[in-house]
């Protein structure tokens, strides 16, 4: 039985659709990566699935319960750590987890035991009686995660759990998410980081402008893209001329910035000399060159016509599904 089922889910704010006709299914025990840029509809979807926001259309079930009609049963089954760690800076870490235990209906002694265990698990024992306002960003995220786990939820929602964290803290969160999943927890993780989705998720849903544009395992999605591309760093102002020179050698992908040319090639490394020669003949200096295998960003580009981590409108190629 799937842990999460979403059918044609919609949310409009006045006339504007933040989420439009989203369908997805998450099996029990998997990590589902919900990938998309800022404003794509990730958080709105999570807020509907966690009963914080009523949908204006469609339906969704979490842990077998309808998010509208059986909201309380949904809440009893889920753990939630939202985008900005929703912590009271005046509380101590221990107070917060004890409060969360009470909110989840755990008896006092069990709540105390769970708080002690979780503080140890997320390595916050030494800081447990300090006010949360004195914690670093990474510590706050770990505390937020611990609070979400206090009642051992079957489904855990993590909304951009590593946004703004340094690489070390990010890795710690990733390890903890992986560990939780190994213990059987289903994880619904939103992220705008490709690497995060690629490393953690069993299945990925890519959302843009409120609509799912691609879904599947990261490997399957990248396999759909097929060919690698050559990434060339060029002198400022030479992109247009370079696009003209390389246009016949492969498919031009939307430029990431004003100095980077991306050429999708069929034969991988074997096509590099052709591209270099073409640019040389056009009198364009190459500052650096790299052969890049397909990434989830390429999937995103293919489906939407712009990059995930930094939106740049396409000028030289149309989206595959446009």
């Amino acid at each position: 039985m799937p842990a999460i089922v979403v059918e044609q889910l919609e949310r409009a704010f006045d006339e504007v659709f933040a989420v439009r006709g989203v369908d997805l299914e998450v099996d029990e025990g998997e990590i589902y990566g919900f990938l998309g840029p800022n404003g794509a509809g990730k958080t709105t979807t999570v807020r509907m699935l966690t009963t914080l926001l009523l949908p204006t259309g469609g339906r969704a079930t979490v842990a077998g319960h309808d998010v509208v009609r059986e909201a309380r049963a949904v809440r009893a089954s889920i753990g939630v750590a939202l985008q900005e760690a929703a912590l009271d800076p005046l509380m101590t870490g221990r107070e917060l987890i004890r409060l969360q235990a009470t909110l989840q209906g755990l008896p006092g002694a069990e709540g105390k035991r769970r708080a002690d265990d979780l503080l140890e698990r997320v390595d916050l024992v030494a800081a447990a009686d300090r006010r949360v306002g004195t914690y670093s960003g990474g510590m706050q995220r770990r505390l937020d995660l611990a609070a979400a786990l206090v009642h051992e939820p079957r489904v855990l929602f993590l909304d951009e759990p590593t946004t703004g964290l340094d690489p070390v803290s990010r890795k710690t969160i990733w390890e903890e998410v992986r560990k939780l999943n190994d213990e059987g927890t289903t994880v619904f993780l939103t992220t705008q980081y490709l690497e995060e989705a690629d490393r953690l998720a069993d299945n990925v849903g890519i959302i843009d402008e409120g609509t799912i544009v691609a879904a599947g395992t990261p490997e399957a999605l990248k396999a759909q893209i097929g060919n690698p591309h050559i990434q060339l760093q060029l002198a400022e102002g030479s992109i247009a001329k370079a696009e003209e020179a390389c246009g016949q050698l492969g498919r031009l992908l939307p430029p990431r910035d004003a100095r980077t040319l991306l050429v999708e090639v069929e034969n991988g490394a074997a096509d590099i000399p052709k591209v270099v020669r073409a640019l040389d003949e056009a009198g364009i200096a190459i500052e650096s060159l790299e052969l890049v295998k397909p990434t989830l960003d390429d999937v995103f580009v293919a489906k939407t016509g712009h990059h995930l981590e930094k939106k740049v409108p396409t000028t030289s190629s149309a989206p595959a599904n446009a």
Partner: protein
Amino acid sequence: MDRHLLPRSEVVGLDVGLMSTLRTNARVVRALGARSIRQTFRRPQLMAPILVFPTLLLAIQTGGAGGAVNLPGFPPVHSFLQFMLAGAMMQSLMLAGNSGGIALAVDIEMGFTDRLFAAPIPRYTIVLGRLAGTAALGLFASLWFLAIGLVFGATIESGVPGALIAIVLVTSTAMAVGGIGAAIALRTGSASVVQGLFPLVLVVLFLSSAFFPNELMIQPAKAIAEYNPLSFVVEGVRGPIVSGVDAAELLEAVLAILGIVALGLALSVRALRHRLRVG
């Protein structure tokens, strides 16, 4: 159904009877109330209006306008301090209600209420928890001002029973006024908007019999004060301190408090629904 997908209550076989539910909800309200009190004591800007300002105003007014008791028509009291205690308590509880609203709005702004809304608890416990904290502050304020009065020579004419009546009235009024503060916080979600009501709180207080007897006011303030629900509460609190318990006065105070509770509840329910609708 797969055991892993059942709600926790079903998995561990918790008693879901009415008493058990009420006990669990009472624990939630107590925990949220305790947090609310801790929050106030740890945030000096919330605590200052509740105790410091009313105490200073009491000292200034008692020191500077003590001769008012000799004005013709001033109700019979032993001292101006004795008369002013009810006003100071009212000011304190009104500001406690306002501070409670500010704290709730801050919770909304920083997303803490999402943590509460995502928990399997009835939504009313969230508001009740906040109000329990405000009521506790009202209790603290009533004890504080009664103690100040006693230390500086005021007497409580109806003794311990009168003091208890004053404490109960002040505590329940704090909760009632807190309901209105909570409703405004839930509706606006903005701490600065709730904070902006601070001057209005003082206007409402000054247009009641909190600081000056109704009999000596001039129109139109006199007419407004006569019908201001707070005046009924003030007289209910003041009566046992300056003279004795008057059943009619007490009944009017209780009805006024119930009226404020009803208004606060109605506004809170409406505001809560709005917040859940707009997310």
